């Protein structure tokens, strides 16, 4: 028999204490049948304006699902970490969350993160991921088999805009104004080619360095090019309003357009006078849209009586599509693996999202290539539909 001295007792106690401190818990801590949705969410940093909305949107949708009994009877648990919109912090959050929980669904915050984590997703094979990025590169089921995006990719957004323009004015002159970032450059090359096939002419491409304040020289270039339509991409608000204000002062008759992340109603409203007539592409209906049947928007309006941003809707729709994929997987009696979840997602065909997308959607690949052109009505202070829903062929 071993003689227990005070030193032994103390060291045994220290080891036990260290074990507790390191979080060694009974294995049954996680409720066995919970589905976990993890998230690298940018609640601070340059993308925080969207991250906060996304966070609320995911939580609200999961509340609706869980209050109704969960996905096939299984509750969905949301575990999120703030990333500051930094790829290393997102990866750290992913590692932390996946080591503590059995994660089946994951929300990533950036293109950089989606690309970085992809090999790890494939290695694990247990997670279906979507996120805030609509990067064209991610819209490739061969290279990114376990990811998707809850809307059209950036090139598809341009595709929707260009089709609208080609309908409005054949042979129109276009200018692309974009930020010198991965986000900004994403759709430019393919969209130039598409413009050509649609008989449109890209007369100027203007790149602005990220964070640049004064855009007067760029506006001078724009005036020289005299485009009929100017498409901004890679921005949220600045420098779009100053661009439009100066261009209008110079008497430039161009119409100005944006893509998803610059289409939030309250953001466009902040453009002041420049907002009037600003157009762009949106895959979802706006919070205040009461046209036709939209039970999901009704629910959102009941839960949150004040306006909710497009970022909120993006988070909400992403969570909805993830849960739908999980539901289809479980209903088919399959295990929640990444491949099964993705197959479940891809089985979505002519699916009604409760009016969030204006038309029934199908997800044959990694994106939902649907959108509608909205234009800002200065009197109503709202983005109003300027076209029908435009669906791109897969």
């Amino acid at each position: 028999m071993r003689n227990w001295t005070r030193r032994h007792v103390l060291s045994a106690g220290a080891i036990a204490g260290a074990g507790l401190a390191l979080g060694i818990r009974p294995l049954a801590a996680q409720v066995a049948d919970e589905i976990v949705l993890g998230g690298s969410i940018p609640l601070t940093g340059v993308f925080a304006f969207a991250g906060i909305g996304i966070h609320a949107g995911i939580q609200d949708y999961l509340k609706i699902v869980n209050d109704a009994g969960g996905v096939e009877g299984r509750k969905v648990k949301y575990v999120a970490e703030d990333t500051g919109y930094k790829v290393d912090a997102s990866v750290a959050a992913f590692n932390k969350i996946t080591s503590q929980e059995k994660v089946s669904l994951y929300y990533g915050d950036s293109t950089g993160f989606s690309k970085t984590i992809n090999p790890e997703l494939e290695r694990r094979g247990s997670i279906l991921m979507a996120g805030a990025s609509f990067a064209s590169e991610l819209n490739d089921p061969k290279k990114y088999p376990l990811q998707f995006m809850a809307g059209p990719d950036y090139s598809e957004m341009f595709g929707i805009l260009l089709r609208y323009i080609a309908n409005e004015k054949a042979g129109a002159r276009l200018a692309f104004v974009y930020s010198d970032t991965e986000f900004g450059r994403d759709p430019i090359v393919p969209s130039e080619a598409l413009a050509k096939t649609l008989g449109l002419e890209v007369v100027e491409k203007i790149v602005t360095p990220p964070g640049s304040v004064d855009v007067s020289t760029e506006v001078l270039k724009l005036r020289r090019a005299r485009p009929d339509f100017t498409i901004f991409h890679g921005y949220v608000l600045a420098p779009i309003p100053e661009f439009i204000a100066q261009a209008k002062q110079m008497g430039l008759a161009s119409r100005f357009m944006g893509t998803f992340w610059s289409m939030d109603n309250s953001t466009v409203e902040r453009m002041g006078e420049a907002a009037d007539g600003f157009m762009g592409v949106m895959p979802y209906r706006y919070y205040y849209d009461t046209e036709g049947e939209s039970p999901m928007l009704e629910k959102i309006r009941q839960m949150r009586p004040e306006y909710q941003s497009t970022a909120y809707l993006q988070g909400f729709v992403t969570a909805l599509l993830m849960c739908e994929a999980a539901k289809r997987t479980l209903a088919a009696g399959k295990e929640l693996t990444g491949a099964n979840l993705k197959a479940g997602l891809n089985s979505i065909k002519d699916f009604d999202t409760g009016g969030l997308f204006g038309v029934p959607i199908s997800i044959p690949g990694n994106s939902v290539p649907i959108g509608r052109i909205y234009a800002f009505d200065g009197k109503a202070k709202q983005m109003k539909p300027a076209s029908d829903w435009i669906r791109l062929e897969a």
Partner: protein
Amino acid sequence: MTDWLFLTEVFLAGLGSGALYAVTGVAFVLIYKATRVVNLAIGEILMLGGYAFFGAAAGWHLPAWVALPVAILAGALVGAVVERGLIRPMIGESPISVFMVTIGLGSILAGFVQIVWGADPLRLPEFLPSAPIFIGEAYVAPKVAYGFLAAMVVVTAFVLGLRFSRGGVALKATAADQAAAYSVGIDVPRVFSLSWIVACGVAAGAGVLVGAIGGISPTMGVFGLSVLVVVIVGGLDSMAGALVGGLFIGVVEAFAGTFLGGEYRFLVTFSILILILMIRPYGLFGTHEIERL
């Protein structure tokens, strides 16, 4: 010839953005000259000025001519508190430590602004006249033109003030030799305090101009980094350097952006920075003994 007109317009636009660099550069120079601290939080104090103006003009509905002094005072107050609370206890510590304190201060201010006003990018209420300005036939964006005028007034006032006012002379004396300044009765700690107060007030005022053009967001502090380039080129301890450096970089960026494309703007700016550091490590107008971090 239209091309000459276009070149003139690009040049004027460059002067406009350069003036914003120059006025923010003044804030860097003032603090560096008096206290030998490179204050990396200037960008965030500039941001705070923009938000203070927004709070006063949009939140309290004050007219712009009241909101502007409120913003400047808010900046000055932050300058006073920071100098007294954070910087003075660091006297005698290594320059790197003080430098790191200002970086930390920048993050705290960005976080504070996000807590109070949220993370959304915002626009300042319009307060500058919006009628287009033409110099001859050349168009100048009105905000840029008024920003230029305001910046020129401020920078000229500082260049003259440093040379002729009592406070300016005391600051120059402190910059030249602190012990000698003490011995002739200059209150050196007060000079330190005042330089922080005035510099942060100027930065906050610059924030209102920058915000009027580009809008405000918790991340607009990065503007301070572009200005750091300007003051290094001009000379960290030279007011005239901030002015010339600011205008020079503004014009160079405008031409680079126009003829090479926006993606080359920073490339050109930083190439100039490297070149200047190789030829004149103390900047175009700076004094030789500057210790660089």
